[in-house]
C-alpha cells in the first residue's frame, strides 16, 4: 500500500492515522502532554469524515466512547495519566460490555498531579487492569512516531477482532517529538456496523442491549469465562515483540516503549566493548511475550530490565524467567529519561560482577 511520508509529532501522527483508519468519532478532554491529538482532530474535522467532541471531563469522555462504541461506531479517545485514571471506571464497563474502542495513554510522571514529563509509570494500570474486576486491555507499546501511527490501525483491528478496548501505551516524549512517518492511506481499514450494535431495533430481531450488568452470579461467571477465553486466545495468537541480538547474548535487556530505544543504543555500545548484550522488547504488553522470555532464559546468563518507573514490567519478566536467571532492574522515575551511557554503566557493572563470577 502506498504510504505518504510526513514529518510529524507523535500525537499528531496518531491523530492523522486515526482519521485514515476510519475513526468515526473521538471524545476527549485536554491534558498535557497529549492535547495535540484533539487539537489536530478539530482542525481536520471540517475537511474530513469524522466527528470530535470536547467533553466536560475524562469521565464523560469515556462514557461517550461507551455510547458511540455501543452504537457500532469506530471510536477513540486519548489522555495522559491523571486523565486516564479518571477513565478507569468506564474502561471496566467497556471491557465487560465487550465494546471495541481504541484508547491512548500518553503517560506522564506520577503519582498524583505529578509532572508533564514522560514516564512509564502507568504500566500496571494499563496491563493489570486499572479499573475493577477481571478484565484486560490489549496494550500496544510504540517506540517511535511511526509506530504511534501504525498501532492505531493495529489497535482498531485487534479491538474489533476481540470485541474489547485496546490501548496505545506511549509517553510524553514519543507524543511530543517529531520524526519521519510513513502514513497508510485513508480507507485502508474497512469497517461495517456489527450486528450486536444498538442502532434501533428492526421488527425482525430482538432488542440489542449493551450492558455489563448480570445480577445472577451464574451468568456473571459465564461472562467472565467469555472474557478469559478471549484473553487466552490473545496470548496464543497476538503476542508481538522485537528481538535485538538476544541469540548469543549473555546479558539480555528487557524494555518497552521509549526505554527500549535507549536500551538498543546501550546494547550497541556494550557490543563495541565486547560485552554480549541483547534486547527483548515487548510490543504487546498484554498479551505479554512470556514464552519468548522463558526461551531466552535458557541461553542468557542474566537479565536487566529497564523502565521509566520504579519497576513494573520487571515483575512480569521475573514471572517469565521463573527464577532460572537473575533479573536486575534499572529505573528512573518522575519524568527522567535515562541516557544510553547510564544503561551501559549498569550493563558494565553487571557484566563485571555477575558474568565474570559465573565464568
Amino acid at each position, binding site marked *: 500500500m502506498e504510504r505518504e511520508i510526513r514529518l510529524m509529532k507523535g500525537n499528531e501522527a496518531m491523530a492523522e492515522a486515526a482519521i485514515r483508519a476510519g475513526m*468515526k*468519532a473521538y*471524545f476527549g478532554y485536554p491534558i498535557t502532554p497529549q492535547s495535540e491529538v484533539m487539537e489536530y482532530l478539530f482542525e481536520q474535522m471540517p475537511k474530513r469524515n469524522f*466527528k470530535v*467532541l470536547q*467533553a*466536560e*471531563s475524562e*469521565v*464523560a*469522555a469515556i*462514557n*461517550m*466512547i*461507551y*455510547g*458511540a*462504541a*455501543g*452504537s*457500532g*461506531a469506530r*471510536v477513540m479517545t486519548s489522555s495522559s495519566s491523571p486523565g486516564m485514571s479518571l477513565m478507569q*471506571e*468506564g474502561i471496566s*464497563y467497556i471491557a465487560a*460490555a465487550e465494546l471495541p474502542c481504541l484508547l491512548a495513554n500518553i503517560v506522564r510522571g506520577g503519582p498524583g498531579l505529578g509532572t508533564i514529563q514522560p514516564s512509564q509509570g502507568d504500566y500496571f494500570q494499563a496491563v493489570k487492569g486499572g479499573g475493577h474486576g477481571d478484565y484486560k486491555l490489549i496494550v500496544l507499546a510504540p517506540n517511535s512516531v511511526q509506530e504511534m501511527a501504525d498501532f492505531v490501525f493495529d489497535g482498531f483491528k485487534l479491538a474489533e477482532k476481540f470485541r474489547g478496548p485496546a490501548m496505545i501505551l506511549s509517553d510524553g516524549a514519543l507524543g511530543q517529538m517529531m520524526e519521519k512517518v510513513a502514513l497508510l492511506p485513508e480507507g485502508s481499514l474497512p469497517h461495517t456496523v456489527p450486528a450486536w450494535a*444498538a*442502532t*434501533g*431495533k*428492526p*421488527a425482525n430481531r430482538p*432488542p*440489542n*442491549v*449493551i*450492558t*455489563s*450488568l448480570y445480577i445472577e452470579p451464574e451468568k456473571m461467571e459465564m461472562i467472565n469465562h467469555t472474557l478469559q477465553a478471549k484473553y487466552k486466545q490473545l496470548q496464543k495468537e497476538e503476542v508481538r515483540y522485537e528481538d535485538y541480538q538476544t541469540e548469543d547474548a549473555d546479558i539480555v535487556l528487557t524494555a518497552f516503549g521509549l526505554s527500549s530505544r535507549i536500551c538498543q543504543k546501550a546494547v550497541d555500545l556494550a557490543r563495541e566493548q565486547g560485552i554480549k548484550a541483547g534486547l527483548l522488547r515487548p510490543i504487546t504488553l498484554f498479551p505479554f511475550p512470556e514464552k519468548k522470555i522463558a526461551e531466552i532464559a535458557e541461553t542468557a546468563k542474566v537479565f536487566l530490565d529497564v523502565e521509566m518507573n520504579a519497576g513494573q514490567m520487571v515483575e512480569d519478566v521475573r514471572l517469565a524467567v521463573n527464577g532460572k536467571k537473575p533479573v536486575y532492574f534499572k529505573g528512573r522515575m518522575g519524568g527522567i529519561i535515562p541516557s544510553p551511557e547510564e544503561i551501559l554503566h549498569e550493563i558494565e557493572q553487571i557484566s563485571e560482577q555477575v558474568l565474570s563470577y559465573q565464568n
Partner: protein
Amino acid sequence: METEVLTPEVQEGFDCVYNKPDTLTDTRFHYCPGCGHGVAHRLLMEVIAELGIQEETIGVAPVGCSVFAYHYMNIDMQEAAHGRASAVATGVKRVLPDKYVFSYQGDGDLAAIGTAETIHTVNRGENILMIFINNGIYGMTGGQMAPTTLANMVTSTSPYGRSTEWAGFPLKITEMLAMLPGAYYVTRQAVHTPNSVRKAKKAIKLGFEYQKLKRGTCFIEIVSNCPSGWKMNPVDSNKWLEANMLTMYPLGDIKVPVKEGQGE
C-alpha cells in the same frame, strides 16, 4: 430474568379497552407495588409505539431502580454507569444523529453523581430526551438521602430527618437546567393521578416530536413516589407526594419553545 407472558386473552362478551404496546416486553416489572416507575415506563413505550419510532429509538438506562429498564422496553438500549446516562446518550446521538435517543435516570443518578454530565449535556443542547424520575430518595440501595430529599424528610442516611444545616438543601436541578440556552423544552410532570398521567404522556410525546427539530435538549422531570423507601402504602405515598413533594417541586412547564416570530 424469566420471561412470563402476561397478556391476557380478551374473554368473550368483554371489549378490549387497553392493550400493552409492542414496545413493552412481556417481562413482569420488578418494581414495588404502586411505584411510579412502572407508569413512567408504560407512558414512554406507549408514545414510542404511537409515534411509530420503535425501530429508530435507542434508550439509555441508568443505575438505580430502573437499572433493568431494558428488560421491559422492547427497543435497542444501552446500560450506562452510575450518573453517566446522558454522556452515553451523547455518544449515541453524535454517531446516530437521525435516531431518537432518550436517557432515563433517577435523582441520585442525574442530580448527584451525574450532575456534571447532566448540566453539560443540556448546555451542549444535545438533541436527546432526558427523563428524570424524582422520588427524593435512593430506592435501589435501600432508601438513602438523595439530593432531592426534602428538608426534614426521614431516610436511612438522614434518620432524624434531613438537616439542611448538615446536608444542604433539596436540589431543584430542573429549574437550573431550564436556565441553560441548550435546553429546548423543560417541564415537570407527575404520574400519581389519572390526570397527571395524561399530562405526562403529552409531555413525553412533545419531547420526542421536538427531537426531530434538532433544536436542543428536552428535559422532563417526573415527580414520583417511593412507597417502600418512604415506608408508606401506595395510596398514602401519593397523598404525601401531593402534599409535600409538589410544594417543593411544582408541576408544569418551566421552559417552552419560543414560537416562530415571537422572539425570546
